[in-house]
């Protein structure tokens, strides 16, 4: 550094000040362009007119009332002019501004005696006459954030998240009796199911982002989520490794590895809880007993994934196990709350990105562990079989909730 500064003839530390130079130049050029920009655009043709589409984020059915959450996804301002329900103009009021700047939102409140379970199409027309419609397959009353619904979403999250993970941890005594060959096979199974979850989360994220207005830059949001959780967990595992006073770069094992697995699974369950919560809130998901059971069966293997690394290490207390179950399953509760009360596809994309990145990082950690501990290494039949079994188990139990 000092050598470079000397070469450039700068005083030490002055590079920070000089770093501002391109920024100042940029401001100057932008100002110059902004003052003459439109005439420049005329040389190559005119900018196309605005699309004037609203983004209808959420339609809620309350007693004698429909609430429509709209966002302006485009650069030019949008004004809410008329509102229709099933192709009929209806009176409405707006909570928030009628004229929406870029990415600003308002809630349109329509007094309306809707019919339970009937499909509805709501439309919002801008002052330029462009109508944006949103179809609701079946009108179901949206529960507000009451203590009852708060408890309800918490219970759903608890049932599909915490309970199955806790049950899966019950494999621990059995695993302790198994040989290293079997334990590493189950670790490979964990990697398999995490691969399944990672791809699943990534697919969800890509799917969700496709519906986002381009202003939100969905792909970038996914990358941000994936990179944040992957690198965040890499940093955490490094700290665990140092805390365990192992040699630098050694793979994690025992409770440390189990904790990492639990965090990875927890982030996935956050996304899963969010998806379930918002589906219920929007009336798209009839959450019957069967579906709850399905999610429990689907998620019980997640507990196995946490139990496997512990089985190969020192004994741990019940409270530590409970904490791990909470880390892995608890986020489903938080996710269900967010999904049930906020329903933001932007958050959904980010969360599924986080889940994918976390799962990928944990696969790497588990892989390093298996490579080191498994008799025969990564190429042993137990490991390959375990990994494939993990994918098959997730696929088959996934049929219950698909």
């Amino acid at each position: 550094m000092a050598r470079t500064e000397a070469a450039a003839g700068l005083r030490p530390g002055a590079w920070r000040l000089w770093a501002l130079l391109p920024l100042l130049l940029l401001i100057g050029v932008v100002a110059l362009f902004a003052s003459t920009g439109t005439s420049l655009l005329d040389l190559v043709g005119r900018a196309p007119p605005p699309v004037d589409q609203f983004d209808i984020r959420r339609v809620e059915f309350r007693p004698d009332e429909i609430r429509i959450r709209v966002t302006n996804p485009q650069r030019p301002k949008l004004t809410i002019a008329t509102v229709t329900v099933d192709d009929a103009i209806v009176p409405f009021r707006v909570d928030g501004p009628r004229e929406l700047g870029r990415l600003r939102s308002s809630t349109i409140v329509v007094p309306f005696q809707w019919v339970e379970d009937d499909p509805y199409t709501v439309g919002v027309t801008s002052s330029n006459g462009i109508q944006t419609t949103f179809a609701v397959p079946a009108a179901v009353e949206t529960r507000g954030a009451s203590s009852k619904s708060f408890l309800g979403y918490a219970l759903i999250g608890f049932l599909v998240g915490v309970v199955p993970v806790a049950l899966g941890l019950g494999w621990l005594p059995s695993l302790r009796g198994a040989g290293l060959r079997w334990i590493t096979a189950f670790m490979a199974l964990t990697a398999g199911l995490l691969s399944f979850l990672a791809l699943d989360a990534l697919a969800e994220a890509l799917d969700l982002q496709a519906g986002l207005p381009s202003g939100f830059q969905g792909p970038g949001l996914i990358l941000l989520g994936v990179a944040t959780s992957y690198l965040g967990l890499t940093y955490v595992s490094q700290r665990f490794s140092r805390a365990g006073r192992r040699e630098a770069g050694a793979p994690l094992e025992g409770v440390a590895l189990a904790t990492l697995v639990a965090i990875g699974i927890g982030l996935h369950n956050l996304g899963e809880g969010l998806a379930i919560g918002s589906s219920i809130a929007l009336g798209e998901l009839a959450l019957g007993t069967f579906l709850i059971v399905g999610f429990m069966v689907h998620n019980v293997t997640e507990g196995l994934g946490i139990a496997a690394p512990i089985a190969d290490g020192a004994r741990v207390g019940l409270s530590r196990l409970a904490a791990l179950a909470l880390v892995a399953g608890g986020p489903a509760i938080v996710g269900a709350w967010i999904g049930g009360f906020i329903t933001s596809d932007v958050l959904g994309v980010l969360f599924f990105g986080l889940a994918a990145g976390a799962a990928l990082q944990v696969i790497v950690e588990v892989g390093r562990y298996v490579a080191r501990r498994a008799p025969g290494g990564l190429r042993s039949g137990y490991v390959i079989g375990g990994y494939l079994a993990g994918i098959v188990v997730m696929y088959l139990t996934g049929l219950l909730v698909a």
Partner: protein
Amino acid sequence: MSGPTHAAMVGGEVPAPGGPDSLDALLHPPKPLPHKPGRVREYTLVASDRQIEVAKGVFFNAWTYNGTAPGPVIRATEDDLLRVNLLNGGSHPHTIHFHGIHPANMDGVFEIVEPGSSFTYEFPARPYGMQLYHCHSTPLKKHIAKGLYGAFIIDPPEPRRPAQELVMVLTGFDTDGDGENNFYGVNGPAFYYAKYPIRVRRSQTVRIYLANLTEFDLINSFHLHGDFFRYYPTGSSDHFEYTDTVMLCQGQRGIIEIDFANTGRFMFHAHQSEFTELGWMGFFEVED
């Protein structure tokens, strides 16, 4: 807001653009003149591109005759010599095609009027009845949907009985260009006559010159509440039907005569509920 209301309800809730008299020129036709063969009746129509408010807060880039959609009411008595000057101040070629009997070179089909130029249509007005006019440039659908049309009344040699005369041109506007109308109305804006009921007296016949010029939809209709009326198809004979509902395809028109039996507020609207709830409804305020 006290409880659920609907746009069809009267009062401050009705969303309609304009003031109480902004459609007067379209609703009230010029006075009829006595029969005098060869008399010249001259009108000037200027075609222009103009943004008009078709529903409360919704602005439509229309093509208009004299700034409104529908355009002005043209009226003549049978055997008048009608002279209509078209000045094209718009950005597209336009014409005026009149319904009625006239020479082939006055039909508004072949004599395209380019932007900046003009053309004068000249022909004897006949036959008597409710006629109409519209632009016949291609693409035809676009030129009509954009608002280039209007009412054209030809009075019979023997004057009709005195009446309270009204003109109603049924209109629709496709504001988002998807080939379906977003708003419907009479003489333009959605819900206008719901917000500003038409005041009529019970003591005198109400005569409505009715024409359907909505694009995209196969039919439109007129339905009156609380009474019956005589409907003279095209208004060119004494033949009438006694009814409270008539159906019209695009270009179909006629004359309605109502002798109100009662006073009070009576609704009129399209008997396509969808059109009604998208703006095509209004009220008569019948007074003694």
